[in-house]
């Protein structure tokens, strides 16, 4: 009797699990000709794909656009991005629009296989049918590239895709974005983009043990490619609080005079945003300014206050870190203390979030790699100091900068951070831009 109940339960469980995990294949189509898509729709899709930062993960440095193959390191193993060109064999050329929409909304491919949530469908589920149609039109009119996918490196049981169905049960809350009628149209547009296609939380929200964003800590700061993605809510470590106007300028230009320069993965985001219309950037800025909220009482308010404070005698810091002080005077101050505004001068480091942030990763990365010019633009530049400073010297410099320009407690483990940053950057710095030099690790792909 007991045995048959257990057997019935096992069977029932298996049926339920199957029902949860199983997704049907969607019939393949003949790859549609590019002329089959309306040009205006394709153009709209191009802007949306830029807002979605699609190319950053689906294109390998020096590789063909959207052909995939980028290794994305995760705590669970390495997952490779897929080929989303309209190639019939290795891309999505045989996917009907319904299959594309299902992938965006449910994270399931045309064959019915669950996709790993490195593809941020927990955000893309918010994208409207209309926008999915435009993005589909855009990707289906790209150059098809024959490039077979690479096998993910995941241990059992995570290499079993049905496991993802369980993850989705916990963390994928379907349904497109519902506007908040108490807010402005611009705010709602911004929320739709930020929570959906732009998937800002994928980097800026910390993740839990199962790799899902912690809803209760939205925008509280996360990690990406050996960079820290700063908190962009009330916990923001920026010395001067962000405003909608400042956010707009930063996202539009890649730098903002009171905050500094977008670097690392954020530089790619801003670069992609350059083809997104002004109205959408304003909408994102408007919504995010609300997420940042009013600055906490006692927080430094204006640029003048911050700079005035930074002018106070640095004697204590210099005494504490004489080596760092001397390096700063010779290597950093010529640009960062001339008073010339960005983009021609460096930002005063009292305004820099890298110095006031919770860990020294971003500051270490930037000292090592510098900032390369953006072609055809007035953009800030900074030389790399990887060849002239050793880890101990950069550590002394960072300790000095923290003491001198921030009222936050000293960082810990700075020398280890610098050593890690140098290790992940060495290959990148020596990699030539040729197509055969695609880095093996995603952490080396950023363009600071």
């Amino acid at each position: 009797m007991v045995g048959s109940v257990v057997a019935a339960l096992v069977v029932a469980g298996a049926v339920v699990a199957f029902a949860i995990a199983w997704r049907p294949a969607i019939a393949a189509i003949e790859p549609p000709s590019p002329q089959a898509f309306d040009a205006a729709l394709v153009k709209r899709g191009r802007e949306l794909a830029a807002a979605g930062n699609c190319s950053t993960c689906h294109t390998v440095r020096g590789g063909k656009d959207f052909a995939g193959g980028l290794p994305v390191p995760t705590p669970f193993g390495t997952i490779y991005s897929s080929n989303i060109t309209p190639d019939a064999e290795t891309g999505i050329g045989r996917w009907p629009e319904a299959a594309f929409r299902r992938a965006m909304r449910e994270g399931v491919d045309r064959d019915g296989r669950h996709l790993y949530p490195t593809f941020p469908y927990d955000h893309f589920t918010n994208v409207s049918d209309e926008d999915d149609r435009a993005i589909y039109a855009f990707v289906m009119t790209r150059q098809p590239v024959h490039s077979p996918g690479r096998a993910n490196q995941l241990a059992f049981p995570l290499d079993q895709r049905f496991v993802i169905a369980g993850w989705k049960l916990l963390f994928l809350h379907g349904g497109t974005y519902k506007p908040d009628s108490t807010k402005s149209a611009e705010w709602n547009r911004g929320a739709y983009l930020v929570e959906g296609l732009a998937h800002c939380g994928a980097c800026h929200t910390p993740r839990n043990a199962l790799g899902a964003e912690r809803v209760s800590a939205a925008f509280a700061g996360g990690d990406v490619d050996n960079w820290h993605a700063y908190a962009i809510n009330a916990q923001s470590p920026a010395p001067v609080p962000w405003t909608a106007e400042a956010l707009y300028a930063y996202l539009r230009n890649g730098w903002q005079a009171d905050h500094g320069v977008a670097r690392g993965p954020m530089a790619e985001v801003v670069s992609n945003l350059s083809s997104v219309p002004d109205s959408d950037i304003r909408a994102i800025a408007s919504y995010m300014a609300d997420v940042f909220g009013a600055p906490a009482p006692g927080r430094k308010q204006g640029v003048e206050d911050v700079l005035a404070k930074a002018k106070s005698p640095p004697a204590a810091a210099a005494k504490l870190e004489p080596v760092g002080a001397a390096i700063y005077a010779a290597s950093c101050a010529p640009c960062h203390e001339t008073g010339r505004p960005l983009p021609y001068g460096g930002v005063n480091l009292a305004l820099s979030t890298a110095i006031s942030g919770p860990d020294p990763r971003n500051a270490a990365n930037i000292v090592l790699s510098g900032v390369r010019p953006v072609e055809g633009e007035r953009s800030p530049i900074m030389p790399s100091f990887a060849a002239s400073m050793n880890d101990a010297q950069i550590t002394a410099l960072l300790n000095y900068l923290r003491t001198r320009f921030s009222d936050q407690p000293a960082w810990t483990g700075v020398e280890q951070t610098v050593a890690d940053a140098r290790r992940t950057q060495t290959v990148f710095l020596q990699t030539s831009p040729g197509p055969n030099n695609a880095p093996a690790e995603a952490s080396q792909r950023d363009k600071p």
Partner: protein
Amino acid sequence: MMTLKVNGRDHQVDAEPDTPLLYVLRDELELNAAKFGCGLGQCGACTVMVDGKAVLSCVTPLLLLEGKQVTTLEGLGSIEAPGPIQRAFMEEQAAQCGYCIAGMMMRAQALLQRNPKPSDDDIRAELEPHLCRCGTHMRILRAVHRAAHLMQTADASTGRRSAQ
């Protein structure tokens, strides 16, 4: 007082630890190949090699050079016996006004020591931090390729003593 090793020789230098290397090279040691361009590490004219790597001497304070080998363009050869990189730049007539060229040669030398057969893309990427307003870029590219070739042939022996 610190000991600064430049082109294989030890120099006793009496300067503050935050003095930029460029000032010491030009003002104290009278090694004038490295040029003052912007003073901000943004133009590349002041480039020298430190332990074989290209470094911007205008933003490199002396204290970073303790125990390290500095090589300037003077260390790569002389007028009588130019090194391969210098010969190549002369043979390709890669200088117009020449102000940027010493820096270009130093970074190219560092590149060739690391990568004896660079591609055009390698050279372009490497020399990106260097500004040249005359516009001899194509000749500079050819000169670096020529230097790579010279370094691999026997008659480039004049450059052997360089390469620190």
